[in-house]
């Protein structure tokens, strides 16, 4: 953009949207993105995410007039009418809060002890932690947009120990410090901290000018981009061009320091003057010079966002006028008004040793061009007298440059453009339709007009300011998406349903038999799977899985090896516990009630997996009314979220594994008696005896061949029926008396009944009955198979089991869609969950129904970061190399431990619900720090790594990361703008529900405005806390308790958290407040209880240890204490309930084990029991 624009500022454009993650939300109709526009009077307007979108003028108490505007991540920077740069931070729920830390250093001298008098070689009296940077203990704030929150405080804990005055002692700087003062302590230091808050929100704050006299070098252009790292706070790359053609970079500009620190002059080649700057999504600036060339910065790293060098390129023939950079595309206008696009992706070209920029000319005379950050939206202004705004159409993954220009708005008297947009992956995946919903706005066109569809809607009641010059926004699909116009169900649905029900009533008068009898033999579904029954056989079996129509799951290997279980006995289903395309079922154990078994099915493909997951889940779904304890929430290690409870199941479990004996010649028939053969059970067999029969036998066997409770063996040669039993490896005494009932070639009905004392067989032929009774020798409890051998045909078998009197409470879970790390429930029926990306979600499903209904569904996303490590060893010839390693070394690419080889290509997405967000990149946030290239050095593998190479370091490694995003549809709503690590739901003193949350940096926030109509609440407020916290918990009538990062417990009185003690031997990591008790977990996984907590003395006396091996604790509304207990299996842990808690034994006596499983986190705070 040329400088003439500065003098003749007829128009301005801007547009801002937010970073990509926010836009994903926009998909769920909760757009957090805003479009900004500047009008002729220099006022800035925001197009909010209200529905319908409406323009509101930005609050501007200082009356700054803005000419040009750019934005990044909710923050706006603009050039004011005085050609200075201003920053505007819209007020949001949680403001910007920065913790300042300084170290006070003192040295001992014999005269007056420790004092400020340091040696000349020493560090400054106040310094940074390393001592290298002197700091001042001053009240000076970076600018008047900041305010101190409190005075300097002394950090009084050190390595999880409480120390008076906060001093730590050492022999000398820099050294290891100890909390105790000894005879050789010559220096001491302590940490002071203080919080400052950004109060300059909702107003334009001037960023310092380049010179004292701001008229000396005014700015003519500004641009901002972000480094594509997902760190907090985000780095903003703010570049500006001054009237003298110089380029400046604003140092240390981050989302928590929007003003930056100081201007850094980045000189360009001598003799050149810059006229325009654009910043790409990854922060690379492109500067156009007056001579028509352009140059860009290379060597950008997170530590050095301004890059190291300029590279210059001539640009397309004709001399550049303007350039605009997207993620991969570079669009340009030359002085002869031609439009050009760079062939290829500029990030690839830039990386070549000798970058070759090849430009493609596009038709059309344009005077201005702008590309969206994701390359998807390109707008251009034509160079005719009445310029027209064009949109590039047909941009797709295959056709990056689009197909043609399409006029969008005519007579647009504009002369510059800029499009900033980020678009969700879904759009990139081909949801081209939603690209039509870009928004373009100007005074005479109502806000909902979409570029691309070209139909101008006629809403005349738009609230656009009349003086608007123009604004253009490409805020992706957030403002209008196809989903919102989808068919909505109207009252007609109810009419239809009612009519159908009336129709049903009419036919209730008729009790005719059904034309279709449910046929018992037909299967419903069958699929090829691999099968693993962990406790029975340790290897995968190949075979078929079937759901029969009486709801049995059956696995068989060519009908030979069979495993069978009633779907009703499936207690939990887990998706990917055992890997991709697997389902793991937790099922009731037929042999040992209460201890669940795990079986795993591996399907051939993803489609089968999902289909079966759905079918089994549906069949295993239990109505909420059946739960005796309901609404326990639990998250698995694979981030599945389950709603769980305990249920009384009246029927005995049905699970049987049947190993049929080797198919010897006389084996005829096998029938699994899956519900046992308890007294009052019966079996009805239709049999026929073939001609020439010699003998056959009917056997009631146990689970193995070793037990035969009843052996019924007619022998035609002897004309007698032998009855016997087989146990402990030997046959019992034969019974062979009675009449022989059978004749060759005849058909009989045989009934086998079990009574309390006998097994009674009745043979019926026509009207004749032959009865034998056989006294139980083996308990009928063990019977679970019927085997028939010999010369007999069994044409049918009817099995009528008597159900055992089993009333076991079983722990049943039902998976809900979603991917979470943590879940917390409240006794108001609400549930909140935290994803791996620390975003906070509120459950929107029904608290009354176990099943999710359609109305509450929304798009739920989560992110997972995959890491792999690149390992290299130094050798004298080539320096560090991953190829020349010692034989004992790890592979060049491994996981963190180094034991497992893991190349970047080996890491695949778990399912098609996942998509990569970006390509592999070096991770600069690796623990222990890294150097500028991301490397960490060590003497040898595996060792402790440090960021800088020392003389004896022979190996180095660096971490690569890649972020994958999951998108599912689930009953969750995002609580926007917040990332939390812990939360707790409680009713406060005003009897309002609130959610307490802990941010990553340990700050406390409260979600308020929660009501039954609006379970997600309205706003986050911050709750002042001086110490960073890691765990927080509250309960109605109890104080809020917390655990600090220092491992101490805190209790909240009035307006601050007060430091309490911690157990003697260990720091705490979690605290849980119940209605009448306070519990905590130490880092040693011991459970602690707070003693003597009373209403008048809420902080209690001390922590006493209750037991070990506890991973997490939770308190139910009924006062029961639940916990996750460690097991031998690192993958699984056990959910358990504390038993025997009483007045005399407030710590309880022991654990009742409820369910072992791959649990990670649970919450019982919303559970309730039902008395039936």
């Amino acid at each position, binding site marked *: 953009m040329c400088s003439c624009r500065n003098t003749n500022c007829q128009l301005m454009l801007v547009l801002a949207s937010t970073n990509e993650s926010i836009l994903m939300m926009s998909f769920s109709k909760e757009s957090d993105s805003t479009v900004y526009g500047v009008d002729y009077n220099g006022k800035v307007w925001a197009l909010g995410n209200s529905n319908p979108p409406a323009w509101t003028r930005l609050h501007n108490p200082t009356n700054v007039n803005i000419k040009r505007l750019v934005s990044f991540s909710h923050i706006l920077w603009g050039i004011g009418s005085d050609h200075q740069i201003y920053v505007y931070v819209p007020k949001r729920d949680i403001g910007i809060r920065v913790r300042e830390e300084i170290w006070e250093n003192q040295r001992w001298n014999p005269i007056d002890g420790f004092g400020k008098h340091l040696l000349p070689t020493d560090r400054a009296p106040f310094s940074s932690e390393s001592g290298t940077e002197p700091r001042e203990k001053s009240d000076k704030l970076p600018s008047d947009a900041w305010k101190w929150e409190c005075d300097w405080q002394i950090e009084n804990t050190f390595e999880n120990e409480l120390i008076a005055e906060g001093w730590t002692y050492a022999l000398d700087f820099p050294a290891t410090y100890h909390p105790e003062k000894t005879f050789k302590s010559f220096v001491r230091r302590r940490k002071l901290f203080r919080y400052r808050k950004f109060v300059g929100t909702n107003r334009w704050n001037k960023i310092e000018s380049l010179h004292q006299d701001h008229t000396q070098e005014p700015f003519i252009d500004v641009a901002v981009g972000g480094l594509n790292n997902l760190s907090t706070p985000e780095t903003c790359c703010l570049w500006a061009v001054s009237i003298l053609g110089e380029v400046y970079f604003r140092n240390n500009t981050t989302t928590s320091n929007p003003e930056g620190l100081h201007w850094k002059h980045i000189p360009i080649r001598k003799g050149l003057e810059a006229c325009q700057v654009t910043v790409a999504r990854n922060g690379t600036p492109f500067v156009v010079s007056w001579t028509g060339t352009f140059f860009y910065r290379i060597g950008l790293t997170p530590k050095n966002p301004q890059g190291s060098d300029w590279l210059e390129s001539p640009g397309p023939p004709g001399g550049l006028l303007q350039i605009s950079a997207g993620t991969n595309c570079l669009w340009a206008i030359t002085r002869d008004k031609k439009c050009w696009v760079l062939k290829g992706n500029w990030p690839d070209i830039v990386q070549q040793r000798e970058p070759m920029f090849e430009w493609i000319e596009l038709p059309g005379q344009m005077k201005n061009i702008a590309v969206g950050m994701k390359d998807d939206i390109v707008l251009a202004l034509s160079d005719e007298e009445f310029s027209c705004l064009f949109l590039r159409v047909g941009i797709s993954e295959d056709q990056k440059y689009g197909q043609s220009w399409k006029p969008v708005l005519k007579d647009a008297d504009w002369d510059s453009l800029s499009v900033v947009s980020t678009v969700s992956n879904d759009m990139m995946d081909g949801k081209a339709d939603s690209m039509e919903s870009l928004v373009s706005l100007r005074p005479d066109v109502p806000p909902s007009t979409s570029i691309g569809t070209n139909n101008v809607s006629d809403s005349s009641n738009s609230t656009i300011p009349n003086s608007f010059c123009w604004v253009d926004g490409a805020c992706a699909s957030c403002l209008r998406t*196809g989903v919102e116009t989808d068919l909505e*169900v109207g009252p007609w649905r109810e009419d239809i349903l009612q009519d159908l029900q009336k129709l*049903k009533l009419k*036919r209730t008068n*008729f009790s005719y038999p059904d*034309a279709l009898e449910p046929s018992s033999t037909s299967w419903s579904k069958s699929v090829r799977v691999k099968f693993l029954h962990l406790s029975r056989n340790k290897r995968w079996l190949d075979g078929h899985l079937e759901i029969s129509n009486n709801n049995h799951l059956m696995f068989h290997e060519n009908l030979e090896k069979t495993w069978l279980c009633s779907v009703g006995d499936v207690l939990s289903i887990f998706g990917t516990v055992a890997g991709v395309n697997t389902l793991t079922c937790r099922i009731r154990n037929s042999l040992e009630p209460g201890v669940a078994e795990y079986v795993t099915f591996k399907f051939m493909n993803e489609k089968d997996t999902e289909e079966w997951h759905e079918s089994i889940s549906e069949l295993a779904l239990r109505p909420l009314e059946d739960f005796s304890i309901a609404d326990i929430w639990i998250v698995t290690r694979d981030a599945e979220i389950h709603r769980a409870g305990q249920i009384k199941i009246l029927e005995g479990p049905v699970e049987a594994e049947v190993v049929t004996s080797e198919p010897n010649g006389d084996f005829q028939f096998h029938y699994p008696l899956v519900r046992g053969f308890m007294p009052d059970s019966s079996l009805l067999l239709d049999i026929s005896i073939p001609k020439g029969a010699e003998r056959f036998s009917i056997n009631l066997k146990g689970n193995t061949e070793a037990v035969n409770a009843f052996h019924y063996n007619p022998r035609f040669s002897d004309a007698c029926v032998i009855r016997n039993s087989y146990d402990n490896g030997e046959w019992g005494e034969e019974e062979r008396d009675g009449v022989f009932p059978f004749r060759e070639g005849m058909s009989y009905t045989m009934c086998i009944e079990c009574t309390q004392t006998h097994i009674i067989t009745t043979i019926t032929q026509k009207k004749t009955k032959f009865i034998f009774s056989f006294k139980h020798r083996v308990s009928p409890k063990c019977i679970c198979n019927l085997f028939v051998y010999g010369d007999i045909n069994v044409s049918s078998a009817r099995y009528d089991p008597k159900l055992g009197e089993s009333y076991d409470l079983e722990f049943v879970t039902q998976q809900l869609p979603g991917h979470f790390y943590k879940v917390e429930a409240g006794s108001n029926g609400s549930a909140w969950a935290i994803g791996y990306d620390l975003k906070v979600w509120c459950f929107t499903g029904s608290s009354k129904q176990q099943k*999710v209904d359609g109305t*509450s569904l929304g798009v739920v996303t989560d992110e997972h970061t995959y890491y792999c490590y690149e390992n290299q060893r130094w050798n004298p010839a080539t320096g560090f190399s991953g190829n020349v390693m010692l034989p004992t070394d790890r592979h060049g690419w491994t996981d963190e431990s180094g034991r497992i080889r893991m190349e970047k290509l080996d890491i695949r997405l778990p399912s098609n619900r996942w998509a990569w967000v970006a390509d592999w990149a070096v991770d600069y946030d690796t623990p222990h720090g890294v150097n500028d290239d991301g490397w960490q050095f060590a003497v040898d593998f595996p060792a402790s790594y440090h960021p800088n190479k020392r003389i004896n370091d022979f190996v180095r490694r660096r971490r690569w990361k890649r972020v994958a995003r999951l998108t599912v549809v689930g009953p969750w709503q995002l609580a926007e703008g917040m990332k939390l690590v812990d939360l707790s739901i409680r009713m406060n003193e005003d009897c309002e529900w609130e959610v307490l949350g802990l941010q990553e940096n340990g700050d406390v926030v409260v979600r308020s405005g929660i009501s039954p109509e609006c379970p997600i609440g309205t706003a986050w407020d911050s709750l002042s806390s001086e110490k960073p916290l890691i765990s927080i918990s509250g309960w109605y009538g109890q104080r809020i308790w917390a655990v600090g990062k220092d491992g101490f417990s805190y209790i909240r009185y009035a307006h601050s958290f007060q430091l309490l003690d911690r157990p003697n031997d260990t720091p705490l990591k979690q605290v849980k407040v119940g209605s009448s008790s306070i519990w905590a977990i130490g880092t040693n996984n011991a459970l602690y209880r707070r003693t003597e907590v009373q209403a008048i003395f809420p902080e209690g006396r001390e922590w006493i240890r209750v037991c070990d091996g506890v991973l997490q604790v939770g308190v139910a509304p009924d006062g029961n204490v639940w916990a996750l207990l460690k097991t031998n299996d690192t993958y699984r842990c056990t959910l358990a309930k504390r038993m025997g808690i009483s007045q005399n034994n407030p710590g309880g006596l022991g654990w009742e084990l409820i369910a072992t499983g791959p649990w990670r986190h649970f919450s019982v705070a919303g559970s309730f029991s039902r008395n039936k």
Partner: protein
Amino acid sequence: MSSGRYSFRPTTKVKKTRSTNYLGGGGGGGGRLRMADDREVLREIWDSKLPVSFALAEEEVYTVKPPEPYYLMVPRLLYFPLVTDKVRRHFAQHVNPEIANNEMWLEYNGQPIKWNHPIGLWFDLFSDGILPWSISIHFDKFPEQNVCRCPCKDAIRSQFMSVLKEADALKHKGQVINSMQEKDHNQLWLGFQNDKFDQFWGVNKRLMESPAGEGFRNIPIRCYTPEKFAMQRLVKPVDDANNSWTSLHDALIEFFPDFDASKVRILIHGIEPPLNSPIQWLSEHLSYPDNFLHVVILPTNFSSVPS
């Protein structure tokens, strides 16, 4: 951007299976696909049955004592040959043994019943609404002119599948049905034939998917009047002119330009759906298993339905 839509289609198709198979079964309220998700309605229609009283035509009674009528609850969605095995066995012993092995045919009110239309459709169209529905059984004089023969169950299957394919051709240019495997077709048919709702809908739901906000390409719909049997027209789910969902009323105007709602009754599955119901929703939920929306139109004076 319309050009982009087709080039992206393959990708979209892959996504379909993805987003439908999320857990919990619920609905696609927030998804980018619409589909038949109102289980309550689907189930109600699936379970809809008719009480039928079958009686042997008097002239064919061969035994001294005429056989008792045979009473059955017959699913509205099925075809007669799938449910009349028992009826046949019951009456076969009462007719002249010479014709006992002939193909049985049904007649109501002097009109032979075509087996290749769903039972409920025939009832809505030709019965006068009196329950039970009295049907005469014939073994003799098969009305070759009016009714095609049904030699075996495979004939019903191929008839059913061909209508299903036609419906998908209208809805998705046949892409969905053609992308299915043989076992899916099998599951559809067995689920339908054996009255297994979940088995059938497990596959059928894929046939009922459409891009959110767009609906099917065309609605498979047929209108029936007692005089002019079946009519078929192209009906779009969305009215492009004013960008709104086509209602049942709009759809009927396609068939009868001078459609007057006060003069006729519109029946689907024995009920009169409100005329403002969107045809897309009706097609998803009120279609017969053959995926066609069979709409019966009766003149009002024909509707003396006793309550």
